């Protein structure tokens, strides 16, 4: 090594840090995509490419949302439709978690439980809601429980499967350590397997909520008088396309909000994901 190499200018240890961007790339692209869709939509309806009966302009859809919110549509104000749908989806989620998490635990921890429950879950999993809807009406009538049940069945498989998979993902050494300290079978489930499964269960809940919103319209086919699915069907019968699109946008907004909420919960309660 020569003197100049020693005395010369020091190599930079790391490239110069980039100045922080005001908006991260991901959200910026997402906003740009949405703006582009809105633009094409506006041009298509302004130029008359598509009949307004099939594709009303964004402005008319916004007016429809405003109308539903202030004057009401299909026997109720928009917030009442939202509240009815939200209640059904959340009630179904709570009920399904109460059933699905224990079922997932049994499938993951007991050979007998797996033998009995796994085929049942696998049977329900691929069924389309519209296929079992008539059966639910015959069995349970046309009341609120039927609607919640239809949504709940659609949510069951994601929650059961994610719980079972999460429990199996617990570290062998964590389980053995707990057993070495004299943990009972139940204590291993309670203090090791279930906490370890939490990230997976949260993912399952996110998938289940998606399935729930998907099933909402089917559930509200059953003699509903309130609800976003009902509002969309009501509007569709009279070819009120702007209200149909308004309903779709509101459902999509609710699903997005619940997804963001779950991600925040994830960050708050399982900060250790991927750090072990």
């Amino acid at each position: 090594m020569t003197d100049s190499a020693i005395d010369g200018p020091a190599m930079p240890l790391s490239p110069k840090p980039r100045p922080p961007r005001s908006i991260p790339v991901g959200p910026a692209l997402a906003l740009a995509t949405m703006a582009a869709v809105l633009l094409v939509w506006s041009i298509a309806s302004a130029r008359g490419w598509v009949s307004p009966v099939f594709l009303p302009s964004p402005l008319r859809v916004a007016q429809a949302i405003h109308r539903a919110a202030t004057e009401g549509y299909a026997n109720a104000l928009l917030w009442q439709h939202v509240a009815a749908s939200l209640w059904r989806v959340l009630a179904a989620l709570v009920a399904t978690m109460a059933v699905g998490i224990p079922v997932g635990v049994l499938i993951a921890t007991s050979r007998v439980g797996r033998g009995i429950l796994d085929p049942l879950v696998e049977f329900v999993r691929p069924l389309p809601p519209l296929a079992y809807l008539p059966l639910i009406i015959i069995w349970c009538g046309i009341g609120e429980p039927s609607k919640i049940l239809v949504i709940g069945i659609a949510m069951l498989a994601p929650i059961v499967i994610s719980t079972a998979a999460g429990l199996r993902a617990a570290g062998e050494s964590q389980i053995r350590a707990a057993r070495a300290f004299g943990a009972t079978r139940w204590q291993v489930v309670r203090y090791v397997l279930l906490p370890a499964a939490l990230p997976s269960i949260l993912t399952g809940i996110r998938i289940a909520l998606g399935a729930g919103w998907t099933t909402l319209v089917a559930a509200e086919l059953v003699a509903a008088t309130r609800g976003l699915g009902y509002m969309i069907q009501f509007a569709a019968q009279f070819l009120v396309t702007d209200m149909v699109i308004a309903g779709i946008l509101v459902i999509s907004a609710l699903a997005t909000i619940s997804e963001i909420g779950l991600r925040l919960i994830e960050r708050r309660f399982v900060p250790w994901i991927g750090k072990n």
Partner: protein
Amino acid sequence: MTAPQRPDAVLSLGDVTLRYGAAAPVLAGVSLAIRRGEFVSLIGRSGSGKTTVLNLAAGFLGPSSGQVLIDGRSVRGPGPERAVIFQDDGLLPWLNVAANVALPLKLAGIGAEARRRVALDLLGSVGLADQGDKPIWQMSGGQRQRIGLARALAARPEFLLMDEPLGALDAMTRERMHGLILKLWRDSHAGALLITHSIEEALFLSTRVVVLTPSPGRITHEEKTLWGRRFLAGEDPRALRSEPEFIAARERLVDAIHAREAA
């Protein structure tokens, strides 16, 4: 419900053979006794059944024939009088440092306040006094292994079973951990069983080194040592390791481990 403290308890394997099905036995006629206050290291090539011996002592496995006994009583499974430490520390990332240390007490149904007191006390003894409220995933590998040691001692075990606890650590951290393990072993007056692939580590820590030879796994050599005790008495570890007797003992162990290949 911490372990009953019997100062002279003995954990022993008596003529233990272990085989899976019709295959050749993993262990054949292994007899080994660990008294409290003793520090036994188990070394041998991979496949010699070191971990199997520890799993039998811990109660994770049962012998095909022979006995595993504590004070003459047959071992039927894991128990609070035996603590196990693995190379993969098995700490729970959803609990903070103190709650991890207190886990054995929680499993034993001890109240939150008493648990925390014991945990903070133990964290002090492993040099992590003010780290109790930190999340596990902010700890370094060496810190995690210390937390694992503190947790193992929380239930005041009579025996400390360690399966390559320092295997994942760098050399400098290992050396610092040696001193800590020796102090904890002395203060807890536990009987220790250490599995390691480092002959020097075995010699330096133990009161007795046992060599296991594979296929089938059996004990072929024993070496009594005293360097650990001399280190605890205040002697310089580097001077101890360069003593001729230390080097001679190391060579005898190397020969014993590779004896079969030469034959």
